[in-house]
């Protein structure tokens, strides 16, 4: 589904990714864990096209997309719920969701919106309010729901549980799990490493711009280094 080979990226003169290799099979749920500043967000931004790559390849469904502009990647099935939520603060909640399905004009849009409202009922309550007025967690829900509106075949989630109440954190992981049934591939970046590894099939560990470990979720959960460095156990 998604293969990354030797991916490099830089901010000005400073390289943030020093050659990342990873692959995700269709329908898989893969997570990346790593400390602050490891480069997780930078990697996701490269995948969605927000961040220019300076080397390496991104192959998505058999095609190289490293040079594809960001706005075209959604059309190919790659959607992202970005770090910092990045919602349209001046537009209403409903407009935010509608724009999530910008590429579509069919009837399914209404259905998708209905699903989003069912997933996060608070969004229905606030549908006509400016999204900027939402609480932090509510904005996070909106960002996730908006990404789903794009009908992705591969979903990139950057810390989706951030700022969510425990009850919703569980729900988010349920949503991720449910992607499996919908045959949506998920790449999940999470600081809640335990939660992430619990739903994922496989995982990568990232440190200062490099992948340092990979394995099945179970292996990583059991690995003492992972437990000490990321799970705090």
């Amino acid at each position, binding site marked *: 589904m998604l293969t990354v080979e030797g991916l490099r990226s830089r901010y000005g003169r400073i390289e943030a990714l020093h050659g990342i290799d990873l692959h995700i099979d269709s329908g898989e749920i893969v997570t990346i864990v790593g400390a602050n500043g490891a480069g997780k967000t930078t990697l996701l931004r490269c995948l969605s096209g927000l961040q220019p790559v300076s080397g390496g390849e991104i192959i998505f469904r058999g095609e190289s997309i490293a040079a594809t502009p960001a706005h075209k990647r959604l059309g190919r099935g790659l959607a992202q719920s970005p770090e910092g939520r*990045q919602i349209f603060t001046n*537009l209403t909640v409903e407009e935010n969701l509608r724009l999530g399905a910008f590429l579509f004009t069919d009837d399914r849009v209404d259905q998708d919106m209905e699903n989003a409202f069912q997933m996060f009922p608070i969004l229905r309550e606030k549908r006509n309010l400016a999204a900027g007025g939402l609480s932090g967690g509510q904005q996070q829900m909106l960002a996730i729901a908006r990404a789903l509106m794009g009908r992705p075949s591969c979903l990139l989630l950057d810390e989706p549980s951030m700022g969510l109440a425990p009850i919703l954190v569980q729900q988010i992981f349920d949503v991720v799990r449910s992607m499996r049934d919908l045959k949506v591939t998920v790449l999940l970046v999470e600081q809640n490493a335990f939660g992430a590894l619990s739903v994922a099939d496989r995982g990568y560990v990232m440190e200062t711009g490099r992948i340092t470990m990979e394995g099945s979720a179970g292996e990583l959960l059991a690995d003492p280094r992972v437990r000490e460095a990321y799970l705090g156990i």
Partner: protein
Amino acid sequence: MPELMQFLLSGVTVGAVYALVALGFTIIYNASDVVNFAQGEFVMLGGMITVFAFEAGLPLPLAALIAIAATAAVGVALNKLAIEPARGAPVVSLIIITIGASIFIRGVTQLVFDKQLHRFPAFTGDEPIRILAATILPQSLWVIAGAVLVFIALWLFFTRTLTGKAVLATSNNRVAAQLVGINTNWVMTLSFALSAAIGALAGVLVTPITLTSYDLGIALALKGFAAAMLGGMGNPKGALVGGLLLGLLEALTAGFISSQYKDAVAFVVILAVLFAMPQGLFGRNAVNRV
């Protein structure tokens, strides 16, 4: 009071001119948060190109169409050659680019055409229309109708169409707009084309009243900018109301108080409104939680 009626008609005429210019600002602003200081040049181009096409023997409507199309092309070129390459630059830098563009366009116009004043005939004659004890020229009605129509079109565009929303989304959060699949470059191009076309339309409508010359744009842009801010930048309703209000203020001040200080009074009122409503009459308060 027959004078009052005349002042009102004058105010509405001038106000409609300002409103048209102010409406032209809205689209580019809504797409990029940039106040395009070359907007006045679009108005000027609309007038000048029509003049020269008309004098070259084309029928007026055709000349006007050519002017609008050509100006829209200039708008697109401005975006492609100057704004797009500067992507990611701070908003002030973009503003300076538009100021540079306005100087550039003025310079080219003066070379291609000339520095003289020009005018073409009013669309439907110069016979004043009497309203109560006052008169208004038929061309003023064209300008007023133009302002209202452009307003309605823009209002529908921004509230009823997905493309309109995409324009708003682009300025609100460009990164997110790309993530939902909006081709932000295309949105910018579209916005410049539309803004320029509206500007040119304004130029076509107002030239029989205001005359035109290569340097007419600066003053119009300034007044249009003030009108747009009075109404609330980015909101078509604000542009229309702000423009009309500014025109009326000027006319009433010139009529009743002092023609010397009419611009001053207009600005004092704008200041007063902004103190009470820092976002203009119809501007929305951006909600940003901390």
